[in-house]
C-alpha cells in the first residue's frame, strides 16, 4: 500500500520537561532534569520536499522531531502530520506513526544483538520496507550484519541508522543528525543515495544537521529553531536571499547598512565586512558601486550562524 508524502504542521507548540527517572538499556536508573524545550513553536514542513532543520545545540530540534514521530505529546499547542488535507495528531495514531520514520542520533537498534536482528524487526514492522534496497545500502556503507551495533564504530552505527531510514521508505522520513561519526566519503554517499531514492520514491524528508555547508544543496525548505522558537520557516532559496554582505570602506559600509538589520560585523583597519538582512534597494546598490563597496551573497551556513549567534540576538534586542 502506498501513501502520499506526509506533511507536518506545528501550531504554537510548547514542550516542558519535568524531572523524571528512566531506565537505561543497561537496566540502571538515571535521573533526567527538567527544562523548556519548545516555546510557542509554529512551523510547516511541506509534503514532498526535503526540509533542512537547523538549530544550535539545545535549540529544541530533537524534541520537535519527537513530536512529529508521536514519541511524545506537546505540553501545549497542536501537532498535525499526514497526507496533505488529511493531517492528524500523530500521538497514538497507528496510521500516521507507521508512515513516519524517525532515525534518532541514539539509534533505536538492538545494541547487543546482531545488526541483522534489528533489520528483521524493522522489516516486520515497516509496511514499505525494501529488503533488497537495505542489502544494497549495507554493501554501500560496508556494514557487517553479523556484528552487534555496540561493536560497530560511531560512524558505522550512523550508517546503520541511515540504512534503516532509507529502506523504510516512510512517507515522512526524518534523520536527526544521522551523519555523526561518518567519514566524508560515507556522508557524501549518504547524501547521493538520499537524493537518488527521493527522486525514485518521492516522500517528505526532514534532515536535522549541523553540517549546513555540505548538506544545504539537498534542502528545498529550511526551518531554523532557536531557543525553542521557530526563527524562520521558508523555501531554501528565500533564505539564501535573506542575507547580503557588504565589504569596503568602514564608513561607506556603515552608511549602507544603517537601514538594515545588522547580522554580523567584522573590521580590519579601515575595511569592514558586514552581513545585513535582506537585499539592497537599487539606490543602495548604486551608492555601493559609487563608494567601492562590494556586494555579495551569504552562504546558508553563515546566515544561520549570524541569525542564531548570541551577538546577533543581543544586537536585535537592543
Amino acid at each position: 500500500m502506498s501513501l502520499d508524502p506526509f506533511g507536518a504542521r506545528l501550531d504554537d507548540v510548547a514542550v516542558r520537561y519535568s524531572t523524571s527517572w528512566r531506565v537505561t538499556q543497561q537496566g540502571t536508573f538515571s535521573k533526567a532534569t527538567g527544562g523548556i524545550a519548545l516555546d510557542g513553536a509554529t512551523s510547516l514542513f511541506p509534503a514532498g520536499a526535503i526540509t533542512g532543520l537547523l538549530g544550535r545545540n539545545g535549540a529544541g530540534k530533537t524534541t520537535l522531531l519527537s513530536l512529529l514521530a508521536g514519541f511524545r505529546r506537546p505540553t501545549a499547542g497542536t501537532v498535525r502530520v499526514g497526507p496533505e488535507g488529511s493531517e492528524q495528531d500523530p500521538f497514538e495514531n497507528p496510521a500516521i506513526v507507521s508512515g513516519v520514520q524517525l532515525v534518532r542520533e541514539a539509534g533505536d537498534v538492538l545494541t547487543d544483538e546482531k545488526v541483522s536482528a534489528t533489520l528483521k524487526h524493522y522489516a516486520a514492522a515497516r509496511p514499505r520496507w525494501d529488503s533488497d534496497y537495505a542489502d544494497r545500502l549495507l554493501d554501500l556503507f560496508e556494514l557487517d550484519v553479523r556484528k552487534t551495533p555496540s561493536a560497530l564504530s560511531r560512524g558505522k552505527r550512523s550508517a546503520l541508522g541511515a540504512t534503516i531510514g532509507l529502506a523504510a521508505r516512510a512517507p515522512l522520513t526524518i534523520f536527526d543528525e544521522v551523519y555523526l561519526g561518518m567519514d566524508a566519503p560515507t556522508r557524501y554517499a549518504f547524501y547521493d543515495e538520499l537524493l537518488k531514492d527521493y527522486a525514485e520514491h518521492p516522500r517528505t524528508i526532514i534532515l536535522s544537521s549541523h553540517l549546513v555547508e555540505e548538506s544545504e544543496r539537498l534542502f528545498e525548505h529550511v526551518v531554523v529553531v532557536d531557543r525553542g522558537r521557530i526563527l524562520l520557516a521558508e523555501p531554501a532559496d528565500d533564505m539564501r536571499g535573506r542575507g547580503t554582505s557588504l565589504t569596503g570602506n568602514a564608513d561607506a559600509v556603515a552608511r549602507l547598512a544603517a537601514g538594515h538589520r545588522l547580522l554580523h560585523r567584522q573590521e580590519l583597519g579601515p575595511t569592514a565586512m558586514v552581513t545585513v538582512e535582506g537585499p539592497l534597494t537599487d539606490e543602495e546598490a548604486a551608492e555601493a558601486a559609487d563608494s567601492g563597496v562590494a556586494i555579495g551573497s551569504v552562504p546558508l551556513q553563515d546566515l544561520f550562524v549570524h541569525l542564531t549567534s548570541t551577538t546577533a540576538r543581543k544586537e536585535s534586542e537592543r
Partner: protein
Amino acid sequence: MSATIDLDESGRLAHRRTMLAMEKRFGGGLLLTGVWYWTSIIFASIVIAVLQSRFSVLEGGTLQYVLGSTRWFLFTMGMILVAVTLPLHLASGGTRSSFVAGLFRSALYVGLANGIMAAALVTAEGLTWNALGWDWQFRQGLVPGGSFIVDAASETLVLATYILIGTLLPAGFQRLGAWGGSFWILALLAIALFVDWSVHSGYIFGWDPLVGAGTARTLLGLGGGVLAVAVTAFAVDRFYRDMPLRPALG
C-alpha cells in the same frame, strides 16, 4: 476522502503488524532465554537429586525447591526487555497501544509455555521418583498430589503476572518519580504475594484455612490468578498508554 479511507485501513493493518513484531521481539526474547533457563534448571535438579541420593537426604523431589526461581527470572527479563523494546517499537512505527497489546499477549503465551514446562517437569519427576521407589511429594499447588492441567494453569497465571510486574517496575519510576516508584514496588509486591497465595504456587499458604481441597478451592485459586493478571494488565495499560519517550534535550 480517499486518503482518509487509506489512512483508516493502513492504521488497522499497522496496529496488527507492529503488535506482532513487538510480540516476536519481546515474547521471542523471553522464550529464547527460557531455553537456557530450563536447561540450567533441569541440570540443577538432576545434580541435586544425585547428591541427595548419594547422601541419603532425599526429601520428596527437588523441583519444588528450584521452580520458584522461574518467576523471578521472568520478572527480571521482563524488566530489562521492556526498557529496550519500547524505544525500538515506537521507532519502527508502532504505538503504545500495539506495544501494550503485544506485551500482554507475550506475557500470556510465555507464561503458558513455561507453565506447561513446569507442570510437565513436576509430572516427570513424580513418575521418575516412583519408578525408582523413592518417596515423592509436591507440597505446592491447588490439587493435593498435583494435577497437570491445574499446575500448568496455575504456573501460567503466576508467570504472566510476574512478567507484567517486571515491566511495571521501571514504568513506576518513570511515571511516579523516585519516591513514588519506591512505594509502587510495594504495591507490585502485594500483587506478587497475592497471586502466589491464591494458586498456592510458593511457600505462602493458600486457601486451606478457608476452603478445603476440591473443585471450589481450585476455581477460587485460579480465579485469584486471573484477577492478578487482569489487575497487572490494567496497570500496564494505564502506565504505558501515554508514556512519553523522552529525548535528550536538543
